[in-house]
Each structure stands twice: as C-alpha cells, then as structure tokens.
C-alpha cells in the first residue's frame, strides 16, 4: 500500500491547470493538503451531468450566426462550468470524432453531436462510437449518406478505423472496402421538401446484403456490428490502446511508453470501455503527478481564452469571440479537417502567436471592472514584487526568473516614463508568457 500523497501548492496548481480553466490562487490553495484520490473524486463526476439545452432557437436557419453563438456559448461554459472536466472531455471528443460545420452546414445537427460528447462521452465508448457514427453530423461530414451498394463511398469506412478506433496498421485496404460496404444504405432522410434533413435513415435497397470479409471474418457485416468488432472484438486491444494513449496525451504529456498505454488500456477494457474509469485512471496515474509532466502541453487556444476570460471576469460578445478565435487557429465546431487540431508545436507559429497576443490586447481594455492587476499600480511596491503579484493574479505561483525579470523591467521602464500603460502592458506580457500559454 503506497503512502497517501497529499497535494502541495505546486501539485494543486498542476491538477487545476489540467482539469479546470483559469484557476485562481484561492482555488489552488483550497486543494493543498488533500489526497490525490480526493481531488480526482472532486473533479470527476460520478455520472454525466444532464445536457444543457440548445442555446439558440432550433427553428432558426441562419447557421453561420448560430455557429458563432454556440461557439461563444461553449467558451463561456468552460469559464463558468461547475464541472470543467466535462468541458475538457467534450473538447477531447470534438477533436476525436471530428465533424465540422463547414461541411455539415446545420448547427442544430452539430449541437446534437456535441450533446453526445458531453453525455455518452462520459459513458461507454462503444455506445458513443455507434451514436456518433449514426448521427446526422457524421453521416454528412464523412459522406456516408451517399454510400450505397454498388457505388461504395470509402470516406467514413476508412476514417472509422484510421481515426476513430484501431488506427493505421490494423486494417488492410481490402478491409476499407469491406467496412465501407457494411455501411452502405445507412444514410439520412435527405431532401424533405424544405431542407436537407440529416435525420438518420436506413434504406435496405441501398445496403449491400452480400457477404464481406472484414478482418478475415466473412459474413454479412452490417454497420454497428463492425463497431462492436472494432471496440470489443478482434480489434479491442488496438482500439482501447489508441483511446488510452490519446487521453493520456490530453491530460498528462506526449509520448507515453507502450507499457503504460497497455496498462491503461487494460483498465479501460476491464471496465467495459467506461470513459470515466479511464479518466480516473489517467488522473491518478503516477505519470500525471510526476514533475516531468508539469507544463508539458501547450494550451489549446480556447483553453487559453477561457483561462483569461475567467481570471479577468470578462464576457465577450460571441461575434468578438469568433473574431479572436480564428487567428489563433481554432474555431470550435469548425476544425480544419477530419484529423482535427494537432497539439503542442501545432499551435505555435508566428501567426498564431500574433493571434494569441491580439486576444490579450483586446482583453486588456476590460480590466477595469474586475480590478485585475490594480495592485501593481502602487508605485511603492518594488518592481519585482509587483511582477510576482501580477503573476499570482494569473494563478501562476512559480514564474521563472526570466519571466519575473521581463515583467519587472517593463514595470520599471513605464514607471520611469510615468506612462499610463503599466497595467495593460503587464497584462499582455504575462498573457504571452510561457507560464500562461502552457499547462
């Protein structure tokens, strides 16, 4: 029996950087001294909370505006949610079972998929895969609505294996064809006289009822049976390992060892592919708490946005939110392609850095109401102490010497010039510091 590990201030800050958004110093300190198991229980709900209602009127047809509003709603949800880990998991699934409003075009259908992520996404993986696959968003996004017997469309059949479950190396090109044949006829209602209705509909006349050889097994494969095969049949090991590795990399750090992944995957399989079991196993994993895992993951742009909005108690119009999100390279519900967004260095380029800095530049005019960073305007406070205070307001209790010096120099420079810009400049400078950009 290992000794019970109690959280230090550093542990608590690390835990909240990974499982919440924009934690304050008070929230960090509230966890100090608690056992790991206790904070994990606090963070991870026992069951999925009920799904929120669609934030806009379902009868609207201005899908671009609806998209803008719902994307803004989600960032706001990250800021205010009492169970922020649900938002992290919804983001995780959004970036796994990728669909995009650019092709689906109907925001209400994108929302239906989103609801699956925040409900079934905290339940059984096999069930989630089935529900997403038969949802209107995916049927449209990967063209399965036009996959018919005799005119097979391979887009979905391929990605189901390559991206959603077992991954490359565990199927052949023949399997792609067989898989695609198995999914023929599983489409949508289509044009109903007023719109392209993306409600699921099975059309037996378009289904290939013949035998198909999938993974060496010949039978009349049909749609969801292939998902059982992928999740709990002959591909159970690669599939469970793939999800375990991806979740590890979302919450812990890149490049886990194969042994670690296999062990987590076994826990996952033993639970019958229960997601919350896997989430708890990841958060309690020794690697999660290891010093080597701290600040190893560049925040998604929306994570950075939500942090800053929460800390500064700022709310933005959805239109502004979208305008600021775009140059950072991440618009929710509109990923670049079916492989989704990347991680770490994927997010770091000159231009996305401009986008992240511009976001800070926009928010720095909203600081007045919240009183954020007012303490550093006291000229009697020595510059390096003022810099520490400022970082602490960002929930950063351990800034590097270089970062402190950079901010302190800025404070000194502007104080000497009697400039008005101490607060806004320090705000942006800390926003673009690695301490804020990396979790």
């Amino acid at each position: 029996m290992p000794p019970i590990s109690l959280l230090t201030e550093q542990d608590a800050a690390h835990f909240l950087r990974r499982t919440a958004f924009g934690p304050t110093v008070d929230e960090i300190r509230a966890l100090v001294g608690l056992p790991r198991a206790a904070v994990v229980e606090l963070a991870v709900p026992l069951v999925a909370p009920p799904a929120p209602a669609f934030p806009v009127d379902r009868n609207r047809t201005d899908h671009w505006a609806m998209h803008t509003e719902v994307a803004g709603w989600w960032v706001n949800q990250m800021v205010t949610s009492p169970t922020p880990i649900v938002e992290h998991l919804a983001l995780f699934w959004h970036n796994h079972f990728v669909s995009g409003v650019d092709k689906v075009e109907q925001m209400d259908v994108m929302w239906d998929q989103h609801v699956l992520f925040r409900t079934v996404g905290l339940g059984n993986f096999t069930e989630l895969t089935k529900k997403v696959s038969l949802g209107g968003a995916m049927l449209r996004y990967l063209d399965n609505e036009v996959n018919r017997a005799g005119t097979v469309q391979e887009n979905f059949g391929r990605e189901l294996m390559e991206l959603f479950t077992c991954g490359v190396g565990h199927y052949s090109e023949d399997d792609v064809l067989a898989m695609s044949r198995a999914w023929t006829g599983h489409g949508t209602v289509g044009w109903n006289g007023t719109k392209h209705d993306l409600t699921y509909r099975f059309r037996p006349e378009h289904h290939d009822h013949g035998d198909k050889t999938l993974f060496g097994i010949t039978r009349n494969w049909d749609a969801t049976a292939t998902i059982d095969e992928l999740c709990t049949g002959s591909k159970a090991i690669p599939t469970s390992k793939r999800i375990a590795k991806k979740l590890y990399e979302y919450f812990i750090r890149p490049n886990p060892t194969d042994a670690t992944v296999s062990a987590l995957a076994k826990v996952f399989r033993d639970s019958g592919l229960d997601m919350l079991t896997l989430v708890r196993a990841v958060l309690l994993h020794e690697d999660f708490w290891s010093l080597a895992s701290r600040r190893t993951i560049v925040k998604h742009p929306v994570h950075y946005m939500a942090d800053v909005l929460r800390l500064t108690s700022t709310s933005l119009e959805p239109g502004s939110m979208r305008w600021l999100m775009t140059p950072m390279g991440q618009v929710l519900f509109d990923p670049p392609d079916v492989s989704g967004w990347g991680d770490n260095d994927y997010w770091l380029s000159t231009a996305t850095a401009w986008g992240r800095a511009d976001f800070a530049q926009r928010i720095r005019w909203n600081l007045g109401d919240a009183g954020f960073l007012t303490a550093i305007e006291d000229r009697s406070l020595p510059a390096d102490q003022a810099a520490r205070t400022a970082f602490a307001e960002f929930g950063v209790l351990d800034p590097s010497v270089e970062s402190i010096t950079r901010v302190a120099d800025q404070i000194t420079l502007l104080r000497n010039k009697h400039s008005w810009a101490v607060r806004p400049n320090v705000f942006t400078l800390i926003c673009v510091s690695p301490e804020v950009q990396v979790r």
Partner: protein
Amino acid sequence: MIERDRDDVMIDRWLRDDPEKVAAAHGPAGIHRRHFLQGALALGAASMIDMRWLTERAGAAPLAADDRIFVAIELTGGNDGLDTLIPTGTGRYHDLRKGLARKPGAGRPISPGWELHPAMKFVSEQYAAGNVAFVEGVGDSAGNRSHFVTMARVMSGEQTLPAAPTGWLGRYLDGVPGTVLSGINVDNGGIPLHMKGRSPRVTGLTFDKRMFGASTTNAPMAALNDAVLSQAQGPRTESAMDMARTVFGDSVSAARQIEPVYDVGETSSPMAHRMTLLANAINLDVGGRVLTTRLNGFDAHQSLIADHDRLMAELDAGLAAFFGKLDQRFADRVCVLVFSEFGRRVGANTSGGVDHGAGSTWFLVGNRVRGGRYGTPADMSRLDRQGDVKIDLDIRSVYASVLSTWLGADDREILGSSWDKLDLFADAAAPAPSRPPSSGGSTPTPAGNYVDALHLLFLHRSATADDVAKWTPAVKRGDRMAVTNALAVSDEWAGARVNELYRTVLGRDADARGRAHWVGIIAKGVQLEKVAADFYGSPEYFQHNGGTNETFVDSLYRNILGRASDRSGRKHWTSVVGTIGRTAVAASFYASIESRRSRVSALYQEILGRNPDAGGHRYWADALLHTGDVTLAAQLASSEEFYRRSQR
C-alpha cells in the same frame, strides 16, 4: 551615436543572462558584438534593435543575388491527375470515367491525345513557352490511400513510417543561413509539416493581415513589443515552455519585417490573393527562400467536374497573379511546384466523383524550368489492383532534383537516401549560383538586358556574362539584326526547337541520335516548318493518334490549327492522305492561310506582347510561305519595340 549606445545597453543586458555569450563577447576583440552591429546596420538603422535577434540567428540578411527561391503549392485532398493532364485521346479513359471524361478538344492541347484542363489558360501558355514541366505517374510509392498518412509522408520526404516530425523543406532550411522569414507559409497561420525543421526558420502568415508586434514608434506599444521580442532569447529546446516562449519573440521580429506584404490591392480570387502575398514576400527581399501555400477542396468524392473546374481556374488565376506580381529581378530565380498527396481512381463512382487513388500529375512552373513531360503518362491498360494510375515515379525523385539542381543542396542528406534525378531545369549544368561572378553583373546594362531577353526568347535560357560581353558591341552599334540572326540559326536554337518538336508532337524526349539528325537537317537550312511536317508525318505520330487516316487528320486539326475538324475539310484531307502522304498533308496544314495567320499572331504575342496590326498581319502571313517563322521572329526581336520591352 545615440542608436549605438542604446544597442550596446541592449546587448549587455542580453549577455547578462548567458555566461557562454558573455565569454564569447568579451573574448578576443569582441568579434560577436561587432558582428551584430554590422548585421543590424546593413539592415537599416530604423529597426536596428529588432533585427539583432534575427541577424544573430541568421548570420545573413536578404538573399544573395543568385540564390534560388522555391515555391510549393499543396492541392489538399488528393488532386485528380487525370483531370489535370487529361488523356482525352485514350478510349479506355472514356470507358472508365464515363460521364466524367472530358471529350477530345475540350481541354488545351499539350501533345497528341493529351490535353490540359480547360481552365488552365496561364499554365498552358507557360507550357507553350517551355516553362512547365509535368511530372506524371508520381506518388509516394510506399504511401497508402489515407489523406493524413500519405500527406504526412509526402511532406516529410523521408521513408520512415510513421512520418518524420520534420519536412523536406524544413530540413533544407535548417541547412542554409536564415531567419524566421526564410520560410513563409500563407494559410491560416499554421506551419505545414513540409516546412517544419529543427530551427526557427518559418513564419506562418494569415491571408488577412493580423500581426502583433510590428510597432516600433508608439511609445508604450513599442516598449511592450520590445519586451515580447526579448522572449526570443535563451535556450531553444523542444520543451513546450521553450517553444511557447520563443515563438512570441520570433513573431515580433517577423511582424516588423513582413508588414509590407499585405499591400495586395485588388485580386481576382482568394488564391490569387494568397499567391500575390507570396510574390510580395519575395519582392520584399527579406530572405524568403521557400514559400508555400495551399488550395483546399480536391477530395472529389462527389461532383468532380464542377468542383475541379472551379479549383483549376482558381489555381491558374493564382499562378498568373503570382508571376504577374513577381519582380523581374526574381523571375529567373523562382520555381513553383504544384503537388498533392495522391491522385484519384480512374473509374467514376456514382456520386459524380472519384475516390482516393495512387499516381498523380505534379507540375513545375518557372522561367528556368525545362518544359516538357517527365515520368510515365497515365497508362489505362496498366492500372493497379484497385483501378488506380500506377506510381512509376517516387516523389523523392522530384525532391532530389529540386534540392540538388535548383537549390544546390545535399539531397541525400535531406532525404535520407539517394534518388534518381530528373532533368527538370533548363540550366541543369550550372546549378545555383548560375551566373559567374565575372558578370560584374550586379548592374545590368540596357544592352545586357536586351541580349538576355534575346537568349530567353530563342534559347530559353538567360544570357551568361560571356554572352553579354560578346553581343554588347553589336547592340551598341545598333546592329540588332546581327544578334537576332546569329541566335536564331545557332545549333543551340535548333536543338531547343527539336526538343520542343519531340515533346509537343511525339510526347516524348528526344533520343540523342534523333536529335543530332534533325539539328543537322536544320543546320543545312531546311525550314523548321518542313521539319515539323516530317514529325507529324512520322509513323510514330500516326500510331499515337489512333492509327487511322481519320484520327490522323483530326489530330492535325487539333494540334496545328487548334480546333476541331469541319466535316468537308475532314473528308477532303482523309481522302488525300493515301495519295500525297501524311507528311505532305501535314505540310499543307502548315502552309494553310489559317495556320500562317495564327502563327503570325502567336509570334507577335510572344515577342511584342500584342496582336499584329492589319497590314503586318497580311504581309507576314504571305511572307511566311517563303521565309519561315524564324525570319519573322528575328525581325520582330530586332525591332525597337522589343528592345524597349526588354528594358522592363
């Protein structure tokens, strides 16, 4: 003096952080320190402080006068090679593609039985000018049909699986002096895999102008920008913290330099806008060596025709905008590659689309590209198991050629192995730097410009320093005819024409013996039109064009007159093939007033960039029967009008 003091303070502050740098700077004669200052001064005092971080990493500023520039355009989603360079003359293509096949004559003729996509006006003009190399049957020979796996492998250029985390262009940039502006990608701000290297060499620009950090004048903003810039100092490991810190510093450096590229003006399409940004970035001369962008939407599972028509028009407009905007001084130093991850299946699916395939067609455009067709044209009788065009040429052969011949780099080191090279560039024998330093040639003279233009016109290459020296006296005397006549009958000229005939008429490269034979014939004074008639009359051409008198006559209409046959003409010429012979029929086509009039127009366009006046048109259309095209070309090229054009 004030600037210098400020700079010293900044350097000292920077040195304070790093004991190694302190040792270096306070070592013998403070070499490093002086070096920084010189680098900064060379770049202009206005932004001296900002440039220092760049020059420190760079050791070099803008490109040397002969450095080559490479542009790569990604067609995302798998471009249909068969609907790019289209085998309209192949029956099996029509059978398999069904309703998606393009009818003969629908596209722009390239060679017998092959047409370029109808929307590609600019590319077809460039091909006619010898500036386009099509690379056919190309692909990643170990790739699969997944977009992501294959694009990752295509971009990495290594044979490792999974793909290396760096790209072939990024690794090239790692090995040359540079800055964060050595590589420029225009898209949504990200950096595609092929541009990723191990050092900070690439800036991802958005197509709309969104840059933080450019200001150096507004006092509180400049102070903030300078502070963010200083994040570029310190170690650069691959840790998330180091990457996140330095990227912001680098972004301020880049913003301050790159700002002017966004002066684009009106453009005809989003792709034209992107390509204009790339041209501006080159014209700005801030050291951009590799520039990339992409055009998305090629995953034609549905509605191939409508989508591909739109995309090809976009691409063509983008290329035209790019070359239109490019400064003349870079014209011979830029080469553009258009590539994609794979081609598409030959057989149509029933959504009006085509699924993922294998071999595709890539192409390169540029003044120094050796125009023609490379690789293996899609062979409908030799498809792979899934019905895809075979990959007969690995992408790495293209990369090796670009790296070694165009960029003068070590292709083996960058690609991790050795690949056969293609002879894609017109001056393959003289890799960069192409012009001998003896040209003293940094200051072009009017006579030199003219001699250069004549070389490009007749020999499809730039003049060397020796060429300029040889012909300048005659040009200065006003005896331009002497120069044009000499160039227009040189063996080099004849060789270029023979190569052209092989490629356009027979669709293949000349073999050495055949080439020597025809150059000898031309040297004896036989008109080029007569030689061309021999090519069109050859059994090889006849076989390639259906092998019947009807198909032969149809092809002459298409290739010589650029139009479909009319009924009465077709009937007449088909009936006389048997009696006067194929060569005589081809010669008759050349001698027709229709052909002569269109050749006169074409030469006026090519040389003077305008249509002939009515009198000139009539006169030369008659004279062409006796004098031959080359005489007209020499006349036009010796005109005052062409001389003036050459000075632009």
